[in-house]
């Protein structure tokens, strides 16, 4: 499946990101920046597609974002390249839309955390039982969606088909379910 390239070990690439950034900052060699960008170009393209909806426009946008990147990389101190790039791309797309319609942009300095990094992997046993208990407490739609998605590893589409919920509903249930579980677990830990 062509999209498999999307799956990456997140830690590994983040380190190399740092290295490439540093290299560009030191040598000014654009090739380093290009390598870095290429790793995320498919994501940038996808985001542009989502907002701009047009393939040609999106392609141009990807190149334009690269130009902005060149300028901004030297100006800003970037902690997490991937998230920073995400915000950059999204803002660019929103700006493009705004010149067509009128829409709000989001602050560029928002730093978004990648959940993958932050979850500590210890205390598993306890968490699992707590998790089970919390899950039981969820509203049924959320519980079902979480079950089908995480446990049974089904795609959104499949879940939608099985449950009769719309795709957006499925996503929404999963999202809200996750949030509730998180709250519940935290409460659990406090005890």
């Amino acid at each position: 499946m062509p999209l498999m390239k999307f799956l990456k070990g997140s830690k590994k690439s983040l380190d190399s990101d740092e290295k490439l950034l540093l290299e560009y900052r030191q040598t000014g060699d654009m090739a380093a920046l290009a390598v870095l960008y290429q790793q995320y170009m498919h994501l940038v393209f996808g985001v542009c597609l989502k907002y701009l909806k047009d393939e040609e426009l999106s392609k141009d946008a990807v190149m334009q974002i690269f130009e902005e990147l060149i300028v901004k990389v030297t100006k800003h101190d970037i902690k997490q390249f991937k998230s920073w790039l995400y915000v950059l791309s999204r803002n660019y797309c929103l700006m493009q839309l705004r010149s067509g319609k009128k829409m709000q942009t989001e602050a560029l300095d928002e730093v978004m955390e990648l959940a993958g990094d932050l979850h500590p992997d210890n205390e598993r046993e306890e968490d699992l039982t707590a998790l089970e208990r919390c899950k039981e407490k969820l509203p049924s739609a959320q519980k079902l969606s979480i079950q089908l998605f995480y446990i049974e590893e089904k795609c959104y589409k499949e879940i939608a088909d099985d449950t009769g919920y719309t795709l957006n509903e499925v996503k929404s249930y999963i999202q809200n379910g996750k949030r509730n579980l998180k709250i519940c677990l935290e409460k659990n830990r406090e005890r």
Partner: protein
Amino acid sequence: MHRLEREAQDDPFLMDALEGYGLSNNDQQDNLAELQQRLADRVAPKKERSILLWRVLPIAASLLIALTIGYMLFKPTSDKQKAAMPLVSSSTPPAPADKVNVQPDSAKKTVSASSILAQNHVPVHHHLNRPQPVISAPENVVGAISSIKDDTAAYTARNNAFYKKGNNNAANVGQNIQMVDSYGDQAAIRGGNKWTGANKEASDTAKTLTNALAGRVAGLSANKKELNEVTIVGYGSVQKREVTGSVATISARDTVAQTMRQAKITSPIDSTMYLAEVVVPGYADKAKSPTRPADGWKNYLAYIKQEAVMPDNSVGKVMLAFKIGKDGLIYGIRILKGSTMAINQKAIEILKNGPVWIGSSVNKEIKLKIKFHKGD
């Protein structure tokens, strides 16, 4: 797919991207490949140089060609001039025609020796090639000009058949010279040209010029100043609005044709729309001139047009200059530029036999161009 979605749960960037791809059913592989290429092109360093080179080469080439042409134009004159000079000074046979030829021919030749060509204004350049005997200012300025071509020598020689040498008509010449712009005189003498370097040649030229002019052209005193720096003043490519005795307005077209044809004398110019054209110096609009045909310009020109047919239907153009006295009589007719003997003759007759003129105290020379055409 599930795996992606799973990962997207934790990665908003991925989440958005997946949504984007989900919007269309097309496979985006080609687009992604294209983007890879564009990025690579964008970052590639070397191309800039070769692009620069591409731009520089044609410019350099054209420069080189221009220089070569310039050099070629420059060079031959110094050789030819020596040949031309003796030719001109020895060509004194007086001709039976009653037109005036003034020395400027030789003046022209000698002065033009200076390889000033390339630096002259084009219009000036053109003037040289005219076989004109005229004394009017630009003609003298012409002296300062361009390439001497052997043609010109032949040209002059041939025209000598029409024109008398200036000696006899010094009076006329003197008269005519007076109305010339003063700078015109100077220009002729000095060889009107901006020229740095090769001063020796310039002063030699000045000497020969003075010799050539000495005693030949009344009213012109040779200025023995060294040719160090000479400028043509006021003779740009903009034509004068007020015609003060110069041929500027009329002859421009002729001279252009001249240079194009290199000593072909009969050079009908297609651009002339009028079969007769009159210029009254000092009056851009001849209707305001006090000196005019008694019956009006319109009728006069109509008469000319009607008469300008040869019995043998030959065509040609004649430029005449003449004056109208206070009594309205025509005098001082001369041919500035002629066609065949027969046509010139006829032109003069047309003028003489034409409608009467009203004279005035202003006695400037009027120029008339008659274009002979085939009869109906």
